[in-house]
């Protein structure tokens, strides 16, 4: 048994997922309290050079053609062997379409308790605590991370990815693969349809309403969205006027969205619009009318004129990115 904190690095088609850095950030916090090391686990094939910036003390690499793609049962068997041998204190997974099912299966296979929807961790008097968000974020549950071993599936929000990065590559150890499986095989990947963006899947939405006044002003908002790395969506009047395609419509007759940031510019927050944005993590509203209902659902707001604010903001965002 060790006090190490293990992090299962998630990656998909040659790209380390953002959540992996969040996991590292959390792991650092836990390791500081437990007195162990942060150990990254990277499963895959031909993954040398991948995950060179994860903030781990050691990176265990299991390179096996069998693990070239994410096949749930093979990955689970490979991890089960490794984890039962190493017996880390806590193993972190992303609560994602990769991590969640590994963590669940391993919890049963290894007999180690599992904590899901974990948003944050902290140490209190030597005890390791989880903070999970339940009920769509409406309640938080806090408690001790079960000992001696536990699995944690984490959601983003509690830590920033930046905190889980390091500049120099971590020491790498290769470990033998124990991947077995066979009941699940990959047939093919299907690429997302190229077409317009799917606003229901975007993380950053800069949404415009009638406050934008005319089609020419859309460009200004598009620049802000580009600076933020997000896309532009809209309320109905804007789409009705043909200033943006229907695919960008948010609301009752458009799409339900759940971005991390929903920046509402000149949108009053009519229920037909509001009902579709309540799943957003943070809503920031810009509306000259202080009594606009959008401020009832927004976390932050300002009554500045959007035409004054947007250019300034675009500029500041650009600066911040450099």
């Amino acid at each position, binding site marked *: 048994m060790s006090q190490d904190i293990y992090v299962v690095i998630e990656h998909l088609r040659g790209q380390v997922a953002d959540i992996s850095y969040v996991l590292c950030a959390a792991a650092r916090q836990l390791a500081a309290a437990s007195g162990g090391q942060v150990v990254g686990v990277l499963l895959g094939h031909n993954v040398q050079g991948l995950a060179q910036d994860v903030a781990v003390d050691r990176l265990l690499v299991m390179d096996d053609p069998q693990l070239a793609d994410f096949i749930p049962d093979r990955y689970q068997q490979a991890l089960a062997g490794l984890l039962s041998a190493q017996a880390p204190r806590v193993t972190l997974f992303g609560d994602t379409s990769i991590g969640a099912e590994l963590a669940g299966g391993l919890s049963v296979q290894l007999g180690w308790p599992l904590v899901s929807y974990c948003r944050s961790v902290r140490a209190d008097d030597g005890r390791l605590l989880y903070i999970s968000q339940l009920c769509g974020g409406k309640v938080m549950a806090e408690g001790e991370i079960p000992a001696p071993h536990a699995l944690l599936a984490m959601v983003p929000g509690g830590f920033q990815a930046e905190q889980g990065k390091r500049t120099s590559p971590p020491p790498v150890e290769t470990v033998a693969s124990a991947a077995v499986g066979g009941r699940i095989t990959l047939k093919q990947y299907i690429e997302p349809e190229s077409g317009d963006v799917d606003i229901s899947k975007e993380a950053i939405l800069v949404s415009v309403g009638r406050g934008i006044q005319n089609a020419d002003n859309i460009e200004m908002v598009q620049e802000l969205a580009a600076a933020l790395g997000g896309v532009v969506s809209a309320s109905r009047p804007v789409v*009705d006027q043909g200033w943006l395609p229907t695919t960008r419509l948010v609301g009752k007759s458009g799409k339900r969205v759940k971005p991390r940031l929903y920046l509402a510019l000149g949108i009053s*927050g009519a*229920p037909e619009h509001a009902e579709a944005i309540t799943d957003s993590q943070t809503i920031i509203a810009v509306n000259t009318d202080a009594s606009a209902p959008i401020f009832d659902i927004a976390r932050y707001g300002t009554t500045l004129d959007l035409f004054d604010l947007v250019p300034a903001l675009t500029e500041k965002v650009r600066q911040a990115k450099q």
Partner: protein
Amino acid sequence: MPERVDFWGIPHTWGPPELYAYGIMGLASLVLLFRLYQAVSLWWRLGRAEKRWDQLHIRIWRLIQYAIVQVRVLSQRYPGIMHVALAWAFFVFLWGTILATIHSHFIGFLYGHTYLVYKLALDVFTAIFIGGAILAAYRRYVLRPRRLTLAPRFTYSLVLIVVIVLGGLSVESTRLAVERPEWAWWMPAGWLVAQLWLATGASDATLLDWHFGLWFFHLLSVALLFVTLPQSTMLHVITGPLNVFFSKLDRPMGRLAPQPQTASGEPLFVTSLRDLTWKQLLDSEACTECGRCQDACPAFAAGTPLSPKELMLNIRTALRRDGPQLLQRGNGANGVPALVGEVVQDAVLWSCTTCGACVRECPVLIEHIDTMVDMRRQLVNEGRMDSMLQEALANLGRYGNSFGQSERVRGRWAQGFDPPIKDARKESVEYLWFVGDYASYSATLSDITRKTAEVFQKLGLDFGILYEGERNAGNDVRRVGEEGLYEMLVHRNTAVLSRCSFKAIVTTDPHSYNTLKNEYPPEVLDGRPVLHYTELLDQLLMTGALKFSHRLGYTVTYSDPCYLGRYNGVYDAPRRLILATGCQLVEMPRCGDRAACCGAGGGRIWMEEQAVQERPSEARIREAAALEGVQALVVTCPKDVTMYRDAVKTTGYEPRLAVKELMELVHAAL
């Protein structure tokens, strides 16, 4: 002495004319009767039973109003005059024939002046008929209004009846040309044409030959009319009056027939023609294809696939095509297109706002909405609806409102009033205010809802609301076709209402108003009235309890909500209130019982927007905006506020035209 002579001038070369004249007509009549029997028997053999024989005096009165005087037909000038000219001439010709028969076979009375007046009447109506026919031809072939279909069968009917009437005129004129009686002037049309014959200089013998030929031709053309009547557009002379006679008397417009049931008490869903009642089948056969309903239909105007006229015609086509097969082979008849889905497509049914404009216009009292809702029930039963409607219904089932919000926050808008708004479940109140979903939950409407409460308080009304005890009243749930859910909502509401003590129910929502007033079990109300707030305030205005202190001085127009105006006849109360607030009222071209629909009714507000040319609400805004000097469109329905405030923005009339709930005017003027 002038008198009517039977078969004047008809030679006996082919035997006695009585024989073959009556022979031909008898044969034609037999064919007609047989074919009519075939068509008519289809209705009751195929359709389900429905009681439409009661209250004969009212039915006969309706027949006089709608089939003989034709008030609905006359409500539009050109087509009204045109049709009445043809129809009344037809009645006169019919009576002429009947009187002639009585004269020749029973009691002779067409002598002397009686005969001359008789002939004069026939002659004058011949002229009127020709005038009507010219109007008809001009309209159908030159004006070509969109609502009319240009099909050969209309041309056939028009040509045939014109040929018949002209034939009759020619026969008469040849006789006059031969006889040249001094009383010829009593037959001005005939005498005029006779001058033409005389001008040809033909001998009497030739004229007699012509007379015989024309008479025979006339006879044959009438026989042809008889024989082809069931297939031609002239069938409406029989089915139209029948439909008027059998029109519904058992319930007001605002009450839908409950869902039909099978013999074993299970709900019956309309899947084939057999599931419609005979009256619903008759409806389709009665349609005159006049297109008035289509002209008035907001869904059609918007460019949706719905035309109430086509709906009827599609059912008729299916009835004639598939009816006999269904009768022979029962429901197992394969290859018969499904009534709901194929004969009438889903999208057609979902387009209807149940605004009632079609029902209001139809000259033969066809009941489009009842049939439409019956078919929607089948769609709901099969889950064939768009996802938004699905969600709204799921929310209504779960939370009792379409917003998907907890019923516990239904009364949230009522917080912070001093004195607090009474809970009608706990205290007895004079007026139980049934708030409705939109007024309760929609954030954009809460201001108006609060103003309503303020007005009620200022007027010192003893009122209360049901707070979380209220559920959606179900008006549109029922019209969407979800009868089971409707029953559940009624059950919930009546359970609460029956434990409350109140003297009247008042509501700002015409939809809730309609179902509470017309469809809820009568024991819930127990004789107590359901009032729209405009009715209540109007009463207070009359008694002097409501007095305004400001004159607003706006120029406004007013749009009657379908479920307040057309459905329940409340037209004057809101208008009196508007005037009392010191506003000037300018009417839109479509007002009162012809007011255009906002497009939200019948559950449409819960459905996905269809791709349309112009939303009904936008069309209405343009209509209002076109009025000189009008500053505001006044409405008296929460859904109207939602729809029109949206439309005034999308049409770009925003600052120029305001959308005001009448309650806002009352609040401001108080």
